[in-house]
């Protein structure tokens, strides 16, 4: 099974019948010996194939080492799975049966692994969501610039105007002093845009290469997570405690939402889902690293790291920015790196002279 990129001339498939026939003949000849010599042997039940020499027989496909040499070949019942193959090993409708029989299980398994690896590589397209969410995070920067004293004249973060559902601390950033109040609106829109654009990207690309990544699950999961992020604070407000447990600290553990960077955690969770959908180890590593970083940014002032590193702080107005810019930088750099790697992997191999 060849790499599609290296296939010399797909156009030759224009004549399926003829080509099929030709292939079939080749197989027939390959199997012919076995069919004629075959007879009986029931090599199928022998572990080492029992295929070599004249014992040969019909069912090399049942042998552990796939039949092996001599006229052991195939052409027997094992290969006539469609009922299409004749005594001589087929009419070509089932080409590859002989080849399958002559391949040992180890070889077949390694072939399956190679196909799987190529399919996964072909499907990998995660540079786009990385770059997209990196840019969306960068675009959120104006919402994190704080003013001291705040524009409202108070030192509190205040509440967001508009529907109560957007008072959610998950999208909000209750602790940002005098920052523009549109943060929850921005993140709600950005999340919906990011999720939808990612799904369209995978759909478009799947149509283009002929192999679709299951993105519907990402869409559903993303929308459910966004809905939960909006609804849970309201639930916590209504149901203050269940038994002896207070609901609010469980659903909205203080520091996790106070810096307004919880959407970054949601993005990280989404990337983890994509890593699973793409079966990509690379994206899984990026997503895990990013998720850890976004948790740090939510639970700790990254500005402090700057202070420890350079001995001076950042201006108060910009003190919340490192919490956002560092994760954004990780997304953008990872996305750019992934784009280059994926581009190189898909580039056709140079012709051998």
């Amino acid at each position, binding site marked *: 099974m060849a790499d599609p990129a290296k296939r010399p001339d797909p156009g030759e498939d224009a004549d*399926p*019948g003829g080509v099929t026939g030709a292939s079939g003949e080749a197989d027939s000849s390959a199997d012919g010996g076995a069919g004629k010599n075959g007879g009986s042997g029931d090599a199928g039940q022998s572990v080492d194939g029992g295929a070599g020499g004249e014992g040969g027989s019909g069912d090399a496909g*049942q042998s552990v080492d796939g039949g092996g040499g001599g006229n052991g070949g195939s052409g027997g019942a094992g290969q006539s799975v469609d009922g299409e193959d004749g005594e001589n090993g087929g009419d070509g409708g089932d080409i590859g049966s002989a080849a399958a029989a002559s391949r040992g299980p180890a070889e077949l398994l390694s072939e399956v692994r190679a196909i799987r690896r190529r399919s996964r590589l072909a*499907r990998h397209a995660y540079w786009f969501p990385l770059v997209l969410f990196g840019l969306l995070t960068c675009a959120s920067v104006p919402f994190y610039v704080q003013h001291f004293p705040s524009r409202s004249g108070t030192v509190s973060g205040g509440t967001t105007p508009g529907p109560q559902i957007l008072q959610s601390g998950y999208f909000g950033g209750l602790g940002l002093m005098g920052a523009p109040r549109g943060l929850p609106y921005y993140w709600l829109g950005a999340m919906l845009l990011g999720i939808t654009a990612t799904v369209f990207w995978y759909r478009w690309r799947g149509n283009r290469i002929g192999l679709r990544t299951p993105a519907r699950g990402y869409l559903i999961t993303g929308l459910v997570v966004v809905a939960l992020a909006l609804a849970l604070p309201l639930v916590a407000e209504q149901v203050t405690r269940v038994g002896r447990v207070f609901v609010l600290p469980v659903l909205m553990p203080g520091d996790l939402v106070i810096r307004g960077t919880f959407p970054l955690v949601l993005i990280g969770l989404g990337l983890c889902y994509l890593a699973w959908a793409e079966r990509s180890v690379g994206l899984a590593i990026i997503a895990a690293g990013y998720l850890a970083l976004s948790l740090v940014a939510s639970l700790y002032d990254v500005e402090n790291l700057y202070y420890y590193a350079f001995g001076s702080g950042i201006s108060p107005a910009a003190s919340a920015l490192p919490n956002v810019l560092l994760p954004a930088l990780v997304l953008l750099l990872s996305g750019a790196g992934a784009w280059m790697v994926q581009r190189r992997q898909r580039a056709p191999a140079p012709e051998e002279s």
Partner: protein
Amino acid sequence: MAEFPTNGLDDVVHQRHRLGILTITAEADRAEFGYLRDALSLTAGNLSRHLSVLEDAGLVQVEKGYKGRRPRTWVRITGRGRSALAAELDVLAGLVRLRSAIGQRPEPS
């Protein structure tokens, strides 16, 4: 007496190219006919026949549609197809283990 591992091989799935088709479709939501043909180095006619076998066995679903004026055929693995593929790979892995176990046995004098 324990059943010989090869008895677990499904003839429909065991065929090399059909195994390839199931492997690719199990990796993706859907695979397009042209992708399968190129990835497996098959002719269109051959791929069609293999797909018919798999479809008849209920292991894949074939959906035909259009993209603009171009007809496109998408192949999707079914739940049964996934199970059959997993079972086949298990049997193959078992055979490999069996063979390596036999290979380690001392030669009879």
